[in-house]
């Protein structure tokens, strides 16, 4: 990586860079840093500051969630039954395990264990893929059942297809006329408002604006999934570099920085899982 260009004035070669040419220069030390430790600390601080922007980035969505849930708790209680709790828990476990293997990858790089480093990165990558696979299954179910964001929300869920684990069961009045009759007398103010507003009323107990829950759900999990994809790209790059054997006790900064990012993605999911799937 020696990029001493010919245009560099003579005096620079004589002062600062002279010792670099003497052979003491570590292979992975960029020329604007004094030492590997300084380079590592600067890179790490840079990554932390990036993570701070990420926290505030997701913070906007958490704020939307908090405002909407504070004002319309019934929408969250109703709509979260459509989410597959077991798949959410599975994805949580997958992501925690991938965080564990990523942390171990950093450790392996620090100790110069090339084989372990490669293995850990591959497992982390596979876990990320598995996470997105489960996410795909969930998104497809939502799509098939019309459980989409506000404006596109047109649920058509039958009892057999219903994956939630608790009432209220959205039963169509066509399949169970008694349920339809019963609801006419049990109309809550919310659902009456929905009926008069010309919205669907075939799902008894469905609060007005139920689709907004799915707007928030898709925004939060979608942005998170994009971050998982970004992480996979970064880990793939790490893996290529690891196969080339560039990481070791002297130089493992990139593994550490990508690890920090990956743990933050895990951390955000740690909050998303109970907030979206485990509403009580």
């Amino acid at each position: 990586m020696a990029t001493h260009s010919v245009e560099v004035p003579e005096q620079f070669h004589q002062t600062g860079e002279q010792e670099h040419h003497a052979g003491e220069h570590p292979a992975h030390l960029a020329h604007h840093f004094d030492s590997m430790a300084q380079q590592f600390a600067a890179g790490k601080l840079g990554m932390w500051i990036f993570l701070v922007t990420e926290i505030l980035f997701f913070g906007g969505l958490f704020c939307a969630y908090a405002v909407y849930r504070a004002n319309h708790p019934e929408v969250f209680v109703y709509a979260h039954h459509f989410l597959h709790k077991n798949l959410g828990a599975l994805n949580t476990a997958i992501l925690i395990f991938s965080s564990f293997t990523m942390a171990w990858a950093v450790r392996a790089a620090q100790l110069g264990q090339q084989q372990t480093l490669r293995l850990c990165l591959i497992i982390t990558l596979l876990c990320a893929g598995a996470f997105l696979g489960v996410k795909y299954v969930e998104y497809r179910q939502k799509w098939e059942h019309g459980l989409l964001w506000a404006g596109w929300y047109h649920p058509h869920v039958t009892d057999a297809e219903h994956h939630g684990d608790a009432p209220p069961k959205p039963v169509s009045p066509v399949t169970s006329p008694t349920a339809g009759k019963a609801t006419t007398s049990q109309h809550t103010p919310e659902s009456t408002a929905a009926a008069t507003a010309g919205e669907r009323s075939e799902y008894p107990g469905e609060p007005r604006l139920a689709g907004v829950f799915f707007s928030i759900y898709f925004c939060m999990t979608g942005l998170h999934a994009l971050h998982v994809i970004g992480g996979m790209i970064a880990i793939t790059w790490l893996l290529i570099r690891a196969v080339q054997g560039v990481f070791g006790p002297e130089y493992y900064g990139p593994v550490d920085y990508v690890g920090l990012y990956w743990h933050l993605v895990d951390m955000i999911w740690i909050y998303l899982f109970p907030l979206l799937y485990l509403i009580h």
Partner: protein
Amino acid sequence: MASQHAGQAHHAGGHVVPGYVLVAVFIALLVLTALTVAATWIDLGSGNLLVAIGIATVKAALVALFFMHLRYDHPFYGIVFTVALLFLALFLGLTLVDVRQTFPEVQAAIENPV
């Protein structure tokens, strides 16, 4: 284990987290995940949300302290992170205070437009 004293070793300014710590944190995170699912079987009213957020925060703290090395690193990284969380709390807190105060009026205006 060959890495017996690797726990104290410092490499290029970093700290090698002992393997057993990583395994213990991983197991703790799984247990807490099971706990947060189990907590939904009990009706605590509004306490359920507090329990869910509390458990999530313990999990996030474990990830930050051990997986992200904050427990071992120079405190400056932890300060940067904590300041971000304080600003997030300020952002969420003030917004919610505002929403609490104005929502009834907003709701009334939506339902009975003049």
